[in-house]
């Protein structure tokens, strides 16, 4: 443990005992520069052609602003639903044995494996008023297709694996003694879960939910078929970008894309920093 905390501790400069620093640095930097950063210059080249006032006018156009509200709102709902549903699925998959468990486990990756356009067409088919699910839900007064509920549903579908697959390994690694001890001390299942399990899972759950949220912000293919795309009501930001592209307005498209890009990157950076800090705290507590 001392070696590891030494390596992780900030401020101390550990000796690089392991080989491969130069090689891995070389590969990583070459790849990141050529494949990720170089193409991004194209985006910023487009932005450079805009004055600050023009940029501001494009990204604060009231229809675009309405699309931010729709996108963020639906993504937030999808993320919250996924946090609960994903936690349930991860828990059941790790803690219990039951017939069909392997199938359920494999099914978790389906949303990643299914092309988003296929998911979009299929969800729209299922949840429209004459689809299998729509027929059941509509009489209950719940209209899914062509409302923001449909948008949230499509987002939730495409991002659920992020939560399940982030929480699952942490739950697996959770030491037996932790929750056994809680029960021995007379805690109920619910109290034990709240006091012992949840604090342990918390970072993974937040990370997974955060990733799901970011993914939802940029999703286009799965949503567009089920959204209805009514101005101010069910138009998502990705559609606004798509519309600008159709108009050959590359600068406008790049401007709106840059808003999504910066928001997403800021969120991801926050998740990374937070995750790093948490791991440090965890190890600090042990060491």
């Amino acid at each position, binding site marked *: 443990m001392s070696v590891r905390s030494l390596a992780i501790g900030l401020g101390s400069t550990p000796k690089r005992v392991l080989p491969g620093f130069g090689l891995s640095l070389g590969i990583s930097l070459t790849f990141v520069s050529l494949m990720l950063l170089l193409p991004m210059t194209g985006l910023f080249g487009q932005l450079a052609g805009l004055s600050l006032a023009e940029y501001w006018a494009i990204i604060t156009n009231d229809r675009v602003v309405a699309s931010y509200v729709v996108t963020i709102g639906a993504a937030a709902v999808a993320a919250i639903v996924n946090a609960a549903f994903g936690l349930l699925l991860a828990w059941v998959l790790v803690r219990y044995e039951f017939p069909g468990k392997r199938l359920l486990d494999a*099914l978790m990756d389906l949303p990643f494996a299914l092309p988003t356009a296929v998911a979009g067409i299929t969800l729209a088919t299922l949840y429209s008023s004459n689809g299998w699910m729509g027929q059941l839900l509509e009489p209950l007064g719940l209209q899914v297709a062509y409302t923001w509920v449909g948008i949230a549903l499509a987002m939730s579908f495409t991002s659920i694996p992020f939560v399940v697959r982030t929480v699952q390994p942490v739950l697996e690694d959770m030491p037996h003694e932790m929750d056994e001890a809680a029960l021995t001390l007379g805690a109920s299942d619910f109290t034990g879960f709240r006091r012992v399990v949840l604090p342990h899972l918390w970072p993974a759950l937040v990370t997974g939910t955060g990733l799901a949220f970011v993914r939802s912000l940029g999703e286009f293919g799965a949503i567009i078929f089920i959204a209805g795309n009514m101005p101010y009501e069910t138009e998502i930001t990705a559609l606004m970008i798509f519309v600008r592209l159709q108009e050959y307005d590359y600068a406008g498209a790049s401007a709106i894309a840059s808003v*999504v890009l910066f928001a997403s990157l800021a969120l991801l950076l926050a998740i990374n920093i937070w995750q790093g800090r948490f791991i440090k705290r965890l190890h600090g507590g042990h060491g």
Partner: protein
Amino acid sequence: MQRIGDAPAVRRLLISAAVVLAALFLLLPLVAIFAQAFARGIDVFWANVTNHYTLAAIQLTLFIAVLTIPVCLVFGVALAWLVTRFRFPGRRILQTLIDIPFAVSPVVAGLVYLLLYGRNGWLGNWLDGYDIQLMFAWPGILLVTIFVTCPFVARELIPLMQAQGSREEEAAVTLGAPGWTIFRRVTLPNIRWALLYGVILTNARAVGEFGAVSVVSGAIRGQTNTLPLHLEQLYQDYNTVGAFASASLLALIALLTLVAKASLEWRAARREVHA
């Protein structure tokens, strides 16, 4: 010893809730795809699958996936090794940079490549002088596919390698083992499941990517049409069965990789028990 949630009632309730919700939310769409694909019988389905253009699309899609995976594998392992085994300034930024593809809408990803390598882009213009065309041909499709899939392997490996720490590798160094041997004998066995999972995600996304590829493909039937693009086109032609037949092929590829992963995991688990 009892663990939290082991009471039979709780257990039954949670399992049924999970199974029912997963069935409605995840399994039902899958069933719907196949139901649509076979809506007009197996003959129509088969005719659609063995259509010349569908076969060409399958071939191109697999070709792109096969080339994408090794690139992402090398990059992902190198990057994970770098950020989890060494500390250096800019480490956190590098780790966030690889998330760019997650943060960029796929259509925009395709667009930035087009702006760079297209006829009007500075790099594309220069290449055009040598009569090299990257966009609207398979190299362009390959480039954007690598772009959208490259974070998966690294993202799978980094948390795991961080959690495992480098103690074992350091011990191997003190024993005088050379670098590659350490990687092969010590690191690889520890990370192979995460690696495999990363490859599966990479493959799934590479096979199914639509938005980015649609921008750079040119959609020439039988030449630069990938399976998802072909599917969309059939859908435009009012050929719902054909579209869902292609969709079911993609779903089938997805299912096969998932089965492969599950069976490998199962074999590994059995070996552990025997050992």
